[in-house]
């Protein structure tokens, strides 16, 4: 998407945001906008570039509705959004992870207790150990994701002279395949650990309750036929044996 934006001669979203301050990317942090006032990032893009309505729509989609990034900087969020688009793309089967807000889900997880290792034993000494002994790094999930993104971006820069999000869909998929197959040996974080965490977070956000920021409108649940949090089947389990049960999925906030 960024490639296309740039190709049309406009200022890329990230370039713009860098120009005017990253705080603008986080709508929630409106009071720190260098331009003052409470203008949204979208309005600023329009004002600064005079782009078409199409571009505004693009930007709106990219910033996952009216939520802002708490944890990721704009380079990192661009990576995450592009990675989501690659790991679970939007296609004829169903919605993609990016359009369901999974970037916001991951951002919040990284900013919150899980990302900060609130349930991780992090005392040393550190040893690599065997795969059977499990995770042994001194890093929290948020530290690992941050370092891993930087590693992958450096690899992409080296091999493609580009940022990850500016690659074609095919090249992005190839990078992910390289990571998954451990063809790339990342310098800071073990490749498999980083890729595993990225994929875990992606699938979590895609299928978790919508109140966590991803799985917007329960669309991933709808795609597979999971009815969500509104679960009371004592009078249904027998009559619906081997029969389709269809219910509009409900998240926790839809019921409360």
């Amino acid at each position, binding site marked *: 998407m960024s490639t296309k934006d740039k190709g049309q001669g406009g200022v890329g979203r990230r370039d713009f945001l860098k120009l005017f301050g990253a705080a603008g990317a986080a709508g929630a942090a409106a009071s720190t906008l260098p331009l003052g006032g409470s203008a949204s990032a979208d309005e600023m893009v329009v004002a600064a570039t005079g782009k078409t309505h199409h571009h505004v729509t693009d930007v709106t989609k990219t910033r996952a509705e009216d939520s802002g990034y708490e944890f990721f900087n704009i380079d990192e969020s661009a990576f995450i959004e592009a990675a989501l688009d*690659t*790991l*679970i*793309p939007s*296609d004829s*089967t*169903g919605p993609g992870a990016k359009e369901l807000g999974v970037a916001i889900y991951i951002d919040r997880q990284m900013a919150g207790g*899980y990302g900060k*290792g*609130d*349930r*991780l*034993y*992090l*005392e040393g*000494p550190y*040893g690599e*150990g*065997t*795969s*059977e*002994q*499990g*995770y*042994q790094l001194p890093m929290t999930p948020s530290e690992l994701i941050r370092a891993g993104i930087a590693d992958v971006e450096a690899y992409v820069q080296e091999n493609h002279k580009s940022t990850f999000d500016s690659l074609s869909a095919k090249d992005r*998929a190839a990078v992910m395949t390289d990571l*998954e197959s451990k063809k790339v040996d990342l310098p800071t974080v073990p490749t498999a650990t980083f890729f595993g965490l990225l*994929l875990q977070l992606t*699938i*979590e956000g895609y*299928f*978790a*309750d919508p109140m*966590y920021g991803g799985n917007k409108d329960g669309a*991933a*649940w709808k*795609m*597979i*036929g*999971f*009815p*969500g*949090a*509104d*679960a*009371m*089947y*004592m009078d*249904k*389990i*027998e009559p*619906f*044996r*081997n*029969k389709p*049960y269809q219910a509009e999925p*409900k998240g*926790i906030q839809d*019921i*409360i």
Partner: protein
Amino acid sequence: MATKLNAVDVLIVGLGWTGGIIAKELASTKLKIVALERGGPRDTNPDFIDPQIHDELRYAARHDLMQNVRRETITFRNSESQTALPMRQLGSFLPGQGVGGAGVHWNGVTWRWLEWDHQARSRTVDKYGEKIIPSDMHLQDWPITYDDLEPYYDKFEKTCGTSGKAGNINGRKIDGGNIFEGSRKNEYPNPPMIAAQSMVMFEKAARNLGYHPFPNPSSNASRDYVNPDGVAFGQCHYCGFCERFGCEANAKASPHFTVIPMALKNPNFELRTNSIVLKVNLDSTRKKAVSVTYLDARGREFEQPADLIILAAYALGNVNLLLQSGIGVPYDPAMGKGVVGRNYAYQCGGGATAFFDKKTILNRFMGAGALGTCMDDFNGDNYDFVKAGYIGGGGISCSNSGARPIQSHPTPRGTPRWGSEWKKAVVDSYDHAASVGNQGAVMAYRQNYLSLDPTYTDVFGRPLMRMTFDFQDNEIKQMNAQADICVTLAKEMGAIKIDRNVPPIPYSIVPYQSTHNTGGAVFGADPSTSVLNKYLQVWDVPNVFVTGACVFPQNAGKNPTGPVGALAYWAVDAIKNQYLKNPGPLVPS
């Protein structure tokens, strides 16, 4: 410096199923009882209410109700040749924390173990001779038989409102129940649950193949129920959010709404939550416990003296406390001596994932933790050990415990892990796949044990407990044989594609397998091979009793909570009617 508190009569460490049962049963003694629980207080309302409890991310993926390993964990290695490293996050098993313990987040499968499980050594030797037992296998009998425990199994089933179908009442075999079970005096307190589609298919397939399927004994109430203590249960909602979750309906039996409130009615009982016991203190003879040292939520250190101390934490927690306190002789595998930490065992799994055509609609999300159909044809000694080439089999079942999509989106082996092809496979398989699983026994071995780690400490400065464990040839053969049987069953169910599964070998602490950690403080008739006598009383320190799955000499092909609960009733009976009348060893050593 610890603040010394006024002495109490009975001190209970950990308030889950066994601590709750003992606290409740001792109420009539009028003794002053204190329970120390490391986690916080919890109740159905407001902690487990619908819809907030139906949150897969928080409870299933992030382990909200479980032990936080940031504070205390274990170290792990597969064998003595390795250096153990910390279990830095939960994975293979999920100990509970907080009032109710793991009894809050269990599935509710409530077995009576098979008669063979109680007398595994003598029945094996009688039938096959000593030679069939591998030289490194510590195969041991329980010090009591199934018949000894039968009334206590019955009592625990009634407390839990277990739903099931008896297969053997007073020696009469009953079709539709488990014909391999030991003789029962009574039918289950509630009828079986409603079978899901996959279970109907499994039952038919098992019968076609000549096996003997029956409904899982489930403490997810199949109907409204009032237990003998007057505690009301609601009918199970089949909501599919059961294991790892609390139950909004009070349908899944849990100590937090059954035995614990009964104990709390006793004015002589006091519960202190957020209180972590660091060690049990002994007197100079090392044969008598005098107190425990614990920290409260603010980190203040207290010494609580007590006449009688019950270790009722999770299996691993109890063994850890024994090791930290120097109670009993720690096991030394090189010398083959010592008992604490000896005979640690686990569970082995595997089976088959069966993929069906799109006309087969399973509605897997309509489920309950203990909802399943099982068969014991290859469990206990219900098959020929010589022909099979291993000892101790497993239950084979088709369970329908829910289909929460973060953790349950099966795809056939060979499917990419991401991308459009992955997504299509998820959609195609989500409601058309079932699993036929083995829950295999794991025997105890010379080389599998628990001890203290020389390097790592918990946040309180204590050494971490170290687990040395791997699957041995006996279990590897069993898992493979059982997986083949599961594949045959899946075929008979009409699967169009079948993936055969065996757990990672060597054993890995990473993927979730089972929270059935057993042994380490086993009960027995011989003090040189057991920590506890038949009443769960420590041989060396008779005013300490230990409950939980740590007492099993080896694991069975069945979930542990049934005998864990039954043995708590058995032990408290002995405490009340024998020990308190004449404190001292109940069995001469």
